[in-house]
């Protein structure tokens, strides 16, 4: 089944370090095929350093190299092998590993030449993908001799992973492969060829875009200079660069949790210097003559960070050709997702591995389900979800595979929304009965949600009420009620859930439902328009503030949408009977306009996925927005008009 020339064996030497290990001579002692014993045996005494304090360290020897392997979790559980990239060591996975270890047998190892593993001698020719495949097989055989492993790779770990997942000799050893930020060099080679041999304007643009993003690849092919840089100024300033450019938080600050410590590790300059040979040994060879049999033999999950500075998302356009069982996921983040988005990665890795384990085809997002790659499994809270736009939004998120919390004052409406959301694809949906204007109730809700469901990924502040009537007829109580729901409801939501998102530090999105009335003045809507204008400005300010936490904020301005807001609108200065007559009349007019709330829900999802700032939805809202910028006089004239209700 396996044809690799390395043998596995175990030593308990806690500090071989990179460089000369115990040497191949000791291999004879254990003999080929002998099961490795772990390095945390009673005689070793030493616990693995920094982030792996609760792990078991062991050494796997293959082809004259000592690989430092750490295992976490119950070895009886399915095995997940996490492979790091460049310039990194296994510590890059500490956050993900800590989250996975209760559900899986998690294995990380330092790739040869990195971290505590030893480097080949000479370096040239020691980092070919064939040798890296030997390493992987040795590790897999040592940690999970009988069952195939779930492979996860980031950056060069993923480039290697593609090699492992596409060569013949690993067939049957890989149960699933999750790849992020690292294309197969062979696929990349074919991608370039296709664009060169059949040039189109779009293809040429894609090629140029990736060529520019790959500057560091050319730089790494320069002799000696990269090594000098890494061992000199770049090595010392790297943690700062990561924090500033890549927003890899906690890179320098000592964080509280044990899994936060030790990244980047002190061995970074040496790792990065050795790792340059990954590029020199493989890139030119593979891009010049890409393999033609590079088909994946395991189900593949592709996680694409959309903000990756080094890899264009277009690289994966034709991936279905090579990986027939492909599940796509996208993530608004930069290159170092194992550091910046551990929660999301953990969810996706666990879900994918579990699906592969049960041998049921992974719940592949049907092509009709838009944004499923982005929103699948995310936690979404929608206020005012018992009817209208809120309900339609909850359904749209449910269809994209998100988990939904439907919040409404009306328990029955919220319950029904959650109920139907489960029917149409939400893996889970709950309803909560809360009045958004009630500060204490909202605080309780925030605590409950954090405890029971987790940190909200997308918050939709939708709940609102309609109030109409001249200013002079609007009582203080009317004002208070309007602002309490329309403004304070949004404020409470942003305050409580925004804080949780910011504290987690893994991004998120807040959507506030403003209105076209936020920029269209009207003599009939002083209270409503004021509250909605406040929501619009609040969203803009919040967007500026939360941008550095990578939390997006969008304001949606729907316009006239056919919902039951008209049936509950309060018309100030009108008696009961007149009130009802106007409600009925307004409902009929909105019914004739018949703009469905589903289209607003689509706009909400689009705003989340594209991180749009202000989104007017109906044509009249878009027209009003345009006029408010270029011809405010026209809007003011319109504001004086008195609609006959």
């Amino acid at each position: 089944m396996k044809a690799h020339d390395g043998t596995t064996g175990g030593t308990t030497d806690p500090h071989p370090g990179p460089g000369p290990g115990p040497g191949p001579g000791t291999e004879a002692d254990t003999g080929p095929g002998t099961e490795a014993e772990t390095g945390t045996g009673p005689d070793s005494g030493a616990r693995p350093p920094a982030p792996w304090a609760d792990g078991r360290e062991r050494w796997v020897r293959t082809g004259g190299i000592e690989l430092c392997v750490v295992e976490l979790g119950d070895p009886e559980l399915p095995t997940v092998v996490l492979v790091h990239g460049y310039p990194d060591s296994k510590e890059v996975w500490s956050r993900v590993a800590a989250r996975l270890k209760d559900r899986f047998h998690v294995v990380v190892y330092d790739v040869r030449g990195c971290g505590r593993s030893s480097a080949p001698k000479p370096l040239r020719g020691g980092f070919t993908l064939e040798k890296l495949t030997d390493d992987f097989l040795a590790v897999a055989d040592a940690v999970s001799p009988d069952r195939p492993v779930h492979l996860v790779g980031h950056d060069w770990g993923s480039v290697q992973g593609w090699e492992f997942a596409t060569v013949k000799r690993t067939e049957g050893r890989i149960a699933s492969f999750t790849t992020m930020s690292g294309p197969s060099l062979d696929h990349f080679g074919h991608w370039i060829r296709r664009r060169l041999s059949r040039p189109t304007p779009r293809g040429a643009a894609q090629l140029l875009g990736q060529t520019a993003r790959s500057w560091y690849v050319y730089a790494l092919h320069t002799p000696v200079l990269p090594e000098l840089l890494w061992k000199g100024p770049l090595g010392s300033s790297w943690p700062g660069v990561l924090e500033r450019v890549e927003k890899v938080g906690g890179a320098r600050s000592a964080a509280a949790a044990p899994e936060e410590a030790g990244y980047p590790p002190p061995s970074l300059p040496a790792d990065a210097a050795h790792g340059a040979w990954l590029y020199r040994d493989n890139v030119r060879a593979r891009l010049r003559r890409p393999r033609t049999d590079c088909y994946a033999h395991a189900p593949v999950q592709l996680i694409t960070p959309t903000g990756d500075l080094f890899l264009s998302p277009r690289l994966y356009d034709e991936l279905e050709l090579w990986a027939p069982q492909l599940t796509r996921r996208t993530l608004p983040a930069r290159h170092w997702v194992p550091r910046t988005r551990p929660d999301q990665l953990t969810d996706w890795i666990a879900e994918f591995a579990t699906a592969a384990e049960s041998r049921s085809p992974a719940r592949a997002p049907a092509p009709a389900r838009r944004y499923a790659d982005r929103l699948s499994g995310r936690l979404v809270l929608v206020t005012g979800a018992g009817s209208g736009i809120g309900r339609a939004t909850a359904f749209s998120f449910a269809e994209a595979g998100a988990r939904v919390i439907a919040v409404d004052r009306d328990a029955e409406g919220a319950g029904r929304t959650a109920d139907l959301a489960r029917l149409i694809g939400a893996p889970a949906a709950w309803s909560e009965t809360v009045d958004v204007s009630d500060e204490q109730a909202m605080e309780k809700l925030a605590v409950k949600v954090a405890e029971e469901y987790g940190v909200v990924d997308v918050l939709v502040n939708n709940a609102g009420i309609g109030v109409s009537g001249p200013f002079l007829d609007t009582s203080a109580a009317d004002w208070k009620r309007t602002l309490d729901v329309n403004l304070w409801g949004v404020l409470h939501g942003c305050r409580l859930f925004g804080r949780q998102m910011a504290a987690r530090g893994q991004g998120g999105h807040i959507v506030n439902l403003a209105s076209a009335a936020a920029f269209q003045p009207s003599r009939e809507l002083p209270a409503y328009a004021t509250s909605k204008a406040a929501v619009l400005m609040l969203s803009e300010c919040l967007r500026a503030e939360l941008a550095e936490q990578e939390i997006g904020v969008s304001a949606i301005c729907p316009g006239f949408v056919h919902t039951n807001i008209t049936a509950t609108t309060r018309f100030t200065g009108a008696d009961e009977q007149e009130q009802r007559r106007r409600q009925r009349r307004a409902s009929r007019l909105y019914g004739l306009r018949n703009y469905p709330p589903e289209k607003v829900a689509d706009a909400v999802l689009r705003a989340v996925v594209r991180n749009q700032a202000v989104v007017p939805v109906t044509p009249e809202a878009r027209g009003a927005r345009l006029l408010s910028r270029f011809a405010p006089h026209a809007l003011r004239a319109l504001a004086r008009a008195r609609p006959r209700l």
Partner: protein
Amino acid sequence: MRAKTLGYSPADLRGFREVQRLSYECAESVAARLQPGVTEREAARMQREWLRERGVRDWFHLPFAWFGDRTAFTGFKIPLQFFPTDRALEPGMAFVLDMAPIHQGFTSDIGYSGCLGPNPVHERLMSDLRAHRELILREVRERRPLREIYEDVDRLMARQGYANRHRAYPFGVIAHKVDRVSDRRWSPTVFGFGTNALRGLAKDALHGHREGWSPLWSPYRFSHHPPEPGLWAVEPHLGFRGTGAKFEEILVVTDSRDPEESAFWLDDDLPHVRRWQEQEEAQTA
């Protein structure tokens, strides 16, 4: 002026009931023969042939069949889109069969919803249609203006979380009158509708226009009148995220003062009614 009484003898009602039953029989027979790959055109032809074999020569409208998201009229802009297409049935797809045969002068107009294999959304829609059947009968007995009943149905749909899809029908009707049609040797159809039946509808529209009512039960002002005695083919149509479900059957409206007599469903032994009864029995058991 026509008398405001019902104007149908028990024998007439029996005739209407028989042709309605025949239509539902046809729907069930065709639905049982549907399988993956059958297109809407083929399903429509199956209905047409089944009824032709049993003596149907004239139509209120020719049989329709809608599959998949066409059951919710997704993206329908013009009435021509109602006609059967080459959309093929797939496992799990919802479908609606809608036919209006005229047999021995009696008109029926029915709608039958089903799905090929399990489809939880469709099951849910079918269960939730029951509330609409009850609401419509109750409010017609209260002699509320038809336009207000229409709005109440609308509100119930919104509360249930569904979209009103009968709005997509011509004039957005939730129901329309049907009547006896005299047997003629030549009974052509225009855009799928039988000319003889259309003539009856036009006559009603003319009468109604003079008397302040309309044979079309719509959300518009011309439907702002109490229920007009006669036979109404009622067809509430729910839509939810690309799945639609409806029933269509005849509601008999009279001008009797007794609420029970003033309005009643022509037949209570229909597939969707039996389904609800079975559900209820299963729940109580």
